[in-house]
């Protein structure tokens, strides 16, 4: 497997990143703040006003180091792409499948999404008290899963997904412990902009993880913009959004819940704007990213490969499995459903 190395998250405003021989130097106010060997780094994520020298960019492109830029608030701005990597046959297979039969892959992805959402609910029941409404949501998701297995049309697959998401987020508020205190009420999923703290956390992490997935897809030669489940829309990484579905509940939602429930993130870690939009403060964003980075270093047994894989490499593994399915090695795309 590919090596899991560190992702660097640069949140210091005004930082300047450059290459000095084989090392990466981070300068803040003309002072060296950090110097690390470049080869130990897999990805560099810059938040806000962070500058990167063209030579470092060149190095990143050449060596498949993922370099991406976000606003201070975590909205994705762009990424550096090196030379186009070459598997045109794979991309051709991807386009053909997306056009002619996107249903099979979409259904498998949604089956994973539903199962993984349900696992989050089960986990809550196991760790805390019995909860009637959570139990009810599990039953509803189960029934959705049963219908999904027989769904053939893309529209019905999307419909079942929407329903299940409504059941799941309908009880998401129950997963936040009463001891957390005020400020973390969750009503409904809101995006662009998120209208409460929980949604702000979810949106921020979905965006960061989605970008990891996008990079992994490109790394194996897939086109992150051409999706199966999500319609093609200019400017959207539809395929990355597809694969993100497998990881939302298991990776992001669980992380958000533990950050809140363990009080690592507090109500005053957010800024509420005049419009009602809720944003994470700088320091809190750092806390969240450190938590994500730590999680990425943990390993899990991959249910299909039956191998221990660092969590940070899971997007790469799924991208590889998808590529192998599209090229005809695997009869079906095996989505990530941890046992």
């Amino acid at each position: 497997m590919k090596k899991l190395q560190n992702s660097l998250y640069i949140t210091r405003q005004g930082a300047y990143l450059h290459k000095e021989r084989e090392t990466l130097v981070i300068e803040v106010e003309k002072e060296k703040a950090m110097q690390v060997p470049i080869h130990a780094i897999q990805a560099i994520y810059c938040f806000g006003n962070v500058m990167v020298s063209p030579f470092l960019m060149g190095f990143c492109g050449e060596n498949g180091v993922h370099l991406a830029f976000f606003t201070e608030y975590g909205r994705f701005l762009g990424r550096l792409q090196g030379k186009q990597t070459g598997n045109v046959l794979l991309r051709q297979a991807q386009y053909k499948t997306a056009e002619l039969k996107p249903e099979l892959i979409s259904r498998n992805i949604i089956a994973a999404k539903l199962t993984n959402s349900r696992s989050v609910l089960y986990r809550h029941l196991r760790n805390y008290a019995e909860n009637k409404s959570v139990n009810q949501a599990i039953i509803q998701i189960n029934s959705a899963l049963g219908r999904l297995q027989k769904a053939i049309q893309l529209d019905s697959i999307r419909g079942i997904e929407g329903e299940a998401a409504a059941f799941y987020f309908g009880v998401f508020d129950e997963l936040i412990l009463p001891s957390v205190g005020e400020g973390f009420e969750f009503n409904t999923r809101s995006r662009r902009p998120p209208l409460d703290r929980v949604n702000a956390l979810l949106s921020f992490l979905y965006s960061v993880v989605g970008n990891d997935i996008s990079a992994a897809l490109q790394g194996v030669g897939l086109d992150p913009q051409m999706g199966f489940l999500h319609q093609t829309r200019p400017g959207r990484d539809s395929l990355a959004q597809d694969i993100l579905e497998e990881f939302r509940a298991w990776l992001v939602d669980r992380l958000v819940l533990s950050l809140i429930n363990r009080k690592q993130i507090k109500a005053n870690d957010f800024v509420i704007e005049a419009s009602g939009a809720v944003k994470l403060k700088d320091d809190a964003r750092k806390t969240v990213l450190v938590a994500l980075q730590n999680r990425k270093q943990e390993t899990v047994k991959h249910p299909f490969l039956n191998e221990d894989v660092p969590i940070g490499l899971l997007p790469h593994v799924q991208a590889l499995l998808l590529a192998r399915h599209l090229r005809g090695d695997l009869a079906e795309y095996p989505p990530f459903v941890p046992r």
Partner: protein
Amino acid sequence: MPDTRLIPLSALQHYAFCPRQCALIHNEQAWSENWLTAQGQQLHQRVDYGLPESRKGIRYERGVEVSAPTLGLTGKLDLVEVEITTGACFPVEYKRGKPKQDHIDLIQLCAQALCLEEMLGLDVPHGAIWYWQTHHRHQVELTPELRQETFNIINSTRELLNSSQTPKAKYEKKCQACSLYDLCNPKLTFRDASRAYVKAIYQENTDEETAK
């Protein structure tokens, strides 16, 4: 001008090692270094960068590019020794390892000779392989049998690459030495368990329901 795809000489060797590896590298453009390939590259860097020189009536040319449209091959030769008076050519291939049981190295050398023959219209009856591990140079006679074997490999390789298909993996001992192991994941496709895996996702559902 008709668009004929020329097959790199290196593809022949990849094909002889493993057709799937050949398709992954030359059609799917997969490449991954391991220490074996890295060492080979280092060796070739040394070989390829030498300037042409002449000694005792022989000109030594390194990194010689060839293409033979009739054979459908293209590539680069490590070293060609040219007899200055007669123009006779003698290809030399540098190998990282030691002489092997199979004919893979011989076939590659023979294909190189065939390219020289097509380009220059002369006979190339002999070549040599130099092995880094043993520091020995082995003279090779390009017999009709070896030529036939080489033609067969060239044809099979061309058919494979033109088909755009990547053959399924067959897990063998030699897979451990392959730098594309992780990308190819031979155990994964040897026995395709994806159908059962996906089915089990739904199965778990009913199991939990009945357990209640």
